[in-house]
């Protein structure tokens, strides 16, 4: 090892690190050259040329590149160390089960119930101690939690890449908007109807895509999203791009929350809530919806149906061979995933009170997909955290004004490079089993063969079975030749 650290070697090592950084710097400067050097003055139609900003750009890029390479090196080093440990015959002890993460520790601790109650209490108090703006952000955030959890059923659990998820959100929102506009139906009737319509549309989309998976499925769902938006844009009944306004917010048992209750608060109690009362009410509705979603999604994931979805994600052929009806699994995944988008859509329409097709663009589908991928595919706490990050972070980054989306994008790139499994990795439920006959007993197989299965210490005489393990033609021929060479009564005493 010591011979590696000669002066020339160190020089070469340093150069091997600096060279790519220099290349990156050169490349960035070249790309940004017209942007950074030319400034055009449109009023008097002149332009000026200045190289002053190029050194800053070069310096910054070089420093960032070095830092970037350092972290990448560190990461690959960790991966290699782990692999070496495994190959050196230091296997992880599989009998201990998966390694505990901070999440399994928290969820497994005896204070779990208290923790959840405190969290819930905090969520209940939150709208009363914040301003109208924050309540709006909170509602949006919770809507996206619902959407993320719904899409997680389709993408994370069932492995069906859906790029048109926003369509179901739109369908939910328009169901409420149209029924309210034309028939005056209330929020509470439209909430289940919106969910149901989205479910039916999910089934409708499910039928043509039964045979598709992967990229093809992505293209079809993407088209579905665009078709939905275009239809909404061009129908007379939806009022086209002008959208539908004056959507009624939800009432409390038929009571208009912005009327009498607000008057009562202001006039009789002298308390000015400082915001629309119905917004707080919507906050609680979406909070309840999120809790319902979490419970349902968790239960689904750990049921016969959820396992069928997981199996379909892992291996479509093997899942059929295990007796799973793939058609049914796909359809239920699509339909149920869409239900949550429909419900969230109804809440969205009631929060905004005005919707038009522009609210349901392709970017929305991508945003929800990013929530699922960033949070951690198939991980419920991950998706929740992902939704919070994706919706709240751009708000928090407003300090950086026009650079905020740039920064947001950069953070996502970093995230995917250094933590591709998502913020919170999906973990599987652990089942413990206490053997009825006690732990010390041998398993049935051990008792039968007298040796632990698979690790039989005495291999049978090697010369008698040379054809083992090889599926190549050579191996077969040898194996058969060996079998043929045996005396006619062949199948006797392999290891005698």
């Amino acid at each position: 090892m010591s011979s590696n650290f000669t002066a020339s070697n160190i020089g070469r090592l340093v150069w091997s690190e600096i060279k790519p950084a220099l290349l990156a710097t050169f490349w960035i400067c070249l790309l940004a050259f017209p942007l950074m050097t030319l400034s055009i003055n449109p009023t008097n139609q002149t332009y000026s040329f200045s190289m002053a900003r190029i050194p800053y750009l070069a310096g910054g890029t070089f420093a960032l590149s070095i830092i970037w390479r350092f972290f990448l090196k560190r990461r690959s080093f960790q991966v290699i160390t782990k692999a070496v440990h495994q190959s050196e015959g230091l296997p992880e002890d599989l009998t201990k089960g998966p390694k505990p993460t901070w999440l399994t520790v928290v969820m497994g601790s005896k204070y779990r119930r208290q923790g959840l109650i405190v969290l819930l209490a905090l969520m209940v108090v939150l709208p009363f101690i914040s301003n109208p703006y924050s309540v709006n952000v909170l509602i949006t955030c919770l809507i996206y939690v619902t959407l993320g959890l719904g899409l997680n059923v389709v993408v994370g659990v069932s492995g069906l890449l859906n790029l048109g998820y926003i369509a179901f959100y739109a369908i939910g929102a328009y169901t409420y908007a149209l029924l309210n506009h034309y028939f005056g139906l209330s929020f509470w009737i439209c909430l289940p109807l919106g969910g149901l319509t989205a479910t039916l549309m999910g089934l409708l989309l499910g039928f043509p895509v039964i045979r598709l998976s992967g990229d093809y499925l992505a293209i079809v769902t993407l088209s579905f999203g665009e078709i939905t938006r275009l239809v909404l844009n061009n129908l007379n009944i939806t009022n086209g791009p002008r959208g539908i306004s004056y959507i009624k917010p939800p009432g409390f048992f038929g009571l208009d929350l912005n009327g009498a209750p607000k008057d009562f608060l202001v006039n009789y109690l002298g308390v000015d809530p400082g915001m629309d009362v119905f917004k707080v009410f919507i906050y609680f509705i979406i909070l309840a919806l999120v809790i319902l979603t979490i419970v349902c999604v968790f239960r689904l994931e750990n049921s016969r149906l959820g396992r069928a979805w997981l199996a379909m994600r892992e291996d479509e052929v093997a899942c059929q061979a295990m007796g799973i009806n793939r058609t049914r699994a796909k359809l239920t995944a699509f339909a149920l995933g869409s239900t949550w988008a429909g419900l969230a859509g109804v809440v969205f329409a009631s929060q905004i009170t005005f919707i038009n097709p522009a609210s349901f663009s392709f970017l929305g589908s991508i945003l929800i997909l990013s929530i699922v991928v960033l949070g951690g595919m198939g991980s419920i706490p991950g998706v929740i955290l992902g939704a919070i990050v994706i919706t709240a972070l751009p708000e928090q980054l407003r300090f950086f004004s026009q650079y905020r989306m740039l920064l947001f994008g950069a953070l996502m790139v970093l995230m995917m490079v250094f933590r591709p499994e998502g913020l919170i990795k999906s973990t599987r439920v652990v089942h413990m089993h206490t053997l009825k006959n006690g732990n010390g007993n041998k398993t049935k197989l051990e008792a039968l063969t007298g040796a632990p299965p698979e690790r039989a210490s005495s291999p049978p005489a090697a010369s008698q079975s040379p054809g083992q393990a090889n599926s190549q033609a050579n191996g077969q021929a040898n194996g058969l030749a060996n079998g043929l060479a045996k005396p006619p009564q062949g199948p006797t005493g392999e290891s005698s």
Partner: protein
Amino acid sequence: MTAATDRPQSAAKTESSDLILSALGMSMVFGGLVALNNVDLSIERDSITALIGPNGSGKTTFFNCVTGIYKPTRGDVILYPAIDLPSISLKGKPADVITHQGLARTFQNIRLFNNLTVLENVLIGRHTRMKAGLWGALTRNKKTRQEEAEAIEFSFELLVTYGLDSMANELAKNLPYGDQRRLEIVRALATEPKVLLLDEPAAGLNISETSALRDLISNIRENEKVSILLIEHDMSLVMTVSKKIYVFDYGRLIAQGPPDEIQRDPKVIKAYLGED
């Protein structure tokens, strides 16, 4: 081990009526390629039958046709669930229905559900014997909870029997290769099959692992009420465990019979070693 090796000889000859599965005139054509050409094959109840042949001779295609992964161009598969029950034609049925009827298989290149735990892999095998639907999953009513508990109990018992219980909560992809092969067999057993189809279970195993596999296959035959159809290249394994051997070459059935006859069959020797 001796028990296993003696059995093919000591087993009495069975009547032709005592079959569990028979494939009649199976043909599979891919474009211009005849992968299977009018193959008849039958499996005796409670026996181990082997299917051998050079690479590309149609063994796995036959498996895929029988288990519904492919739809055979011609031919029929008939299952005789029990002696006093009527026979069932599996022709053209989808794979999941065939599994429900009692055929379970493993794959040549292991196809486990890698990112799920060992126990979940086995639980998915229970899928076809469980009933809970959407409503049961959402409400988690008493019936569903009971069914779920029974399935977990059943799966754990299988894992204990075949020595995988200590890794029940480990992800399938983290298992050593030999254990992955074993898990795939256990997962197939969880469907409570009448016929178990093993596609090259010894591929990639070393000598001691193959020997353990031999015991495993014999034990499965004895513990579970199941007949086994085995594709295998390892002749020492095939010749010792199986009662009857079918030999394929270029999609045709070229020989069938007990191991000692097959070993002496000139057509088989020609298929494997070529002509002088």
